[in-house]
């Protein structure tokens, strides 16, 4: 049987429907704000102004977005191969170890533009290797990747805690983190770009890894839709049987996709570690891996959508912080509720309004929804 709903034009599919979902999420969030006795409209203004109103806000928004682009791409690459990588969190966390080794070894001798590529490679390799084990278990032993990657998040966290309170901690320090990096491992800021547009920035962590994230988004697009490997991944993702028929090795494709996913997750660590804190601290990923799942879903697994969704979530993080500051009745937890609503409507319920919109399109212009091509409910 063919699908009961015909397709929509691309702009409605990728633009209109996410916007409607987002709008509904904010309306519902508005009721929550009303419930705690604040003005939802004013809250919305503070949120948006906090994120985009001033140069510093924009820089913070994009800083957070950088993190989410990496984790969103990581989830998306695995998802195109039909694998649900919940281990982005752990892969990013353990990649901090790779970065720490590179930075602590070379920050006194090399300039940043030599340390950075080394750190990219180290982060990607460590992240990929951390994803390799669950991938191997899935491919060879049939252990479900969702279960194993969740468990590997805990293992990664435990290892990092051990290292950061032990071997990696400077002897005299009481903080569970590495020593601060020297200038040779500090990434240059990108605030000057925003300042070009006349905005003033006091201090914000937006750094060059934002550009790396955009480059990766382009490379992921190239990989998925323009390479043979991406074609094989998508074939396996849609239909493992068809992949077998096409002579695609299941083991190879699962392991390759998961390692690419892990490498992207690992690169996420560059942004906070080298771009902002200049050390590796406990829990520096702080849930960005899980936000990546929402970002990937909301971005419909497409790099452009992921970049936009990452910026949206960056806005919620930055604007949310401002909101919690301006409106004491709205606590940090309220912001989490709003983020949760966005995830609910944009991710879990993303198809809720689709039938209505399709019916609407069909009544205006049957051709635009591919009526002629679809034969209808078959026998």
């Amino acid at each position, binding site marked *: 049987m063919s699908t009961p709903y015909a397709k929509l034009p691309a702009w409605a599919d990728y633009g209109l429907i996410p916007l409607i979902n987002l709008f509904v999420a904010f309306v519902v969030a508005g009721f929550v704000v009303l419930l705690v006795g604040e003005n939802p409209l004013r809250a919305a203004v503070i949120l948006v102004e906090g994120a985009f109103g001033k140069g510093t806000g924009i820089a913070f928004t994009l800083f957070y977005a950088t993190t989410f682009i990496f984790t969103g791409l990581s989830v998306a690459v695995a998802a195109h191969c039909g694998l649900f990588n919940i281990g982005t969190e752990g892969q990013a966390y353990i990649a901090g170890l790779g970065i720490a080794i590179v930075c602590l070894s070379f920050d006194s001798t090399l300039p940043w533009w030599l340390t950075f590529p080394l750190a990219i490679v180290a982060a990607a390799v460590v992240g990929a290797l951390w994803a390799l084990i669950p991938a191997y278990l899935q491919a060879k032993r049939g252990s479900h990747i969702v279960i194993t990657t969740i468990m590997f998040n805990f293992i990664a966290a435990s290892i990092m805690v051990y290292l950061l309170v032990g071997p990696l901690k400077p002897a005299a320090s009481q903080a569970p983190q590495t020593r601060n990096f020297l200038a040779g491992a500090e990434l240059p800021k990108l605030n000057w770009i925003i300042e070009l547009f006349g905005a003033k920035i006091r201090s914000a962590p937006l750094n060059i890894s934002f550009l790396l994230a955009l480059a990766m988004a382009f490379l992921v697009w190239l990989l998925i839709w*323009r390479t043979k490997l991406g074609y094989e991944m*998508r074939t396996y993702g849609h239909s493992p049987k068809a992949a*077998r028929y096409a002579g695609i090795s299941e083991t190879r494709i699962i392991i390759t996709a998961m390692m690419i996913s892990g490498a992207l997750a690992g690169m996420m660590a560059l942004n906070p570690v080298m771009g902002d804190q200049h050390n590796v601290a406990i829990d520096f990923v702080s849930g960005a891996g899980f936000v990546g799942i929402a970002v990937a879903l909301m971005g419909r697994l497409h790099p452009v959508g992921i970049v936009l969704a990452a910026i949206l979530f960056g806005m919620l993080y930055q604007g949310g912080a401002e909101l919690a500051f301006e409106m004491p009745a709205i606590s940090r937890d309220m912001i989490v509720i709003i983020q949760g609503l966005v995830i609910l409507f944009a991710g879990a319920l993303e198809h809720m309004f689709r039938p209505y919109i399709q019916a609407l399109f069909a009544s205006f212009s049957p051709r635009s929804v591919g009526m002629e*091509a679809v034969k209808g409910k078959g026998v």
Partner: protein
Amino acid sequence: MAQAAIELIGINKSFGAVRANRDINLEIARGTIHGIVGENGAGKSTLMSILYGFYQADSGEIRVGGQPASIKTPNDAIALGIGMVHQHFMLVDNFSVLENVILGAESDALLKKSIAKARSELERLEREYGLEVDPDAIIEELPVGLQQRVEILKALYRGAEILILDEPTGVLTPAEADHLFRILRQLKDQGKTVVLITHKLREIMAITDTVSVMRQGTMVATRETAKTTVEELAELMVGRRVLLRVEKGEAEAGGVKLAVKNLTVKDTRGVTMVDDISFDISAGEIVGIAGVAGNGQSELLEAISGIRRAVSGSVMLDGKPIDLTGAADPGELRDRGLAHVPEDRHHVGLVLAFEENENSILGYHDDPRYLKGPFLNIDAIRNDAKDKIAKYDIRPADCRLKTANFSGGNQQKIVLAREMEQDPGVLIVGQPTRGVDVGAIEFIHKRLIAMRDQGKAVLVVSVELDEIRSLSDRILVMFAGRIVGERGPEATEGELGLLMAGVEQQEAAQ
């Protein structure tokens, strides 16, 4: 004329933008067998699902026995005396016949009384309609034909006066089908009304009193069966004249292309599905494998094409061995000139979510023609897809359209175009025309014969006996994992039917 059992007046049903039923008017007379034919996607199943309460019509009226009826759920339909036998049986495999019959119609919290009542009721039904089934048999131990009988009993037990059968003979041997028809005639003689949905015109001619033809969601004609012909019905279904028999010359068989020796294959549960099979296919001939679905044909195809690992046996392709028990994978076989059109095009032969052009390279995506280094050569792929669309008349002619949006026949053409255009030495085809409309069947058969005439070795596996008989130069019959007989194309249906049912060769010869 008898009073109408069912009247459908102005039925409309859309799914999103798709109008599956448009202004359907249909009157089914009481005490008759009424056939409904149409191509896949013509809206037959939708219409019957509306009648049985699975879907609600957007507009229109249903009258049962002259009274307007509101059928919102299958329970409403059952209360009105409408019963349905589905194409895929709705039986609990590890329950007994009795337990299945009373399922959902238990009269008491304790089963004892219901079972006793059902037992006496079944005995009555058995007497009246010749529906013999052992009430204590476990469903999974019964052959398919008997399972279907249980479905019919279920409907009758619930007091069905009107029985709808959806493609009932798809899984039956010819002998089982004949028995089914006898039962249906008996039901008719007792005053029941039977609605038969099928795409097999021969069955329509054999058993129905009246036949209605659907095309693209509309009811195009209703005829008295005695006053119509197969040709007329086919033309009504397709909307143009159709050649029903394939015209082909004599085969000019050359040397052996594919030699299968002592092949044994087990399924995932470890049950032997292909049991020590040997056969050859020569260049320039079509070998057909007939058999009732589930007798090992699928596993045979999967093994020969490298998808499923064989347990033992040897296979020679062009005189060189293939290691089907170990390393052989579909990619390697493809490179050696063995193309495969799989039975299940929705999950194996195609990726429905892909654009048409992406599917036109599936399995051949390693071919340097479609690549630029590690990158796909998008222009080459799309141009290649456009050529195939033109050559195989795939509609709509849009290589960027999602494959799921093509009809069954056009999807099959996409697979055939891909496999045939690689110019393979051996082509193995599973169910070449399953779920394909009449117009496309003609095209596909012609293509297969053209392959043969170019000197390719073609292996066709089909559960459609007519198809096997009209395409094949040699017919092998499979039963319970073995080849139980080889016949020429002149073999009669009865002869093949006995072999398919597992009757020993000697007996068949008598």
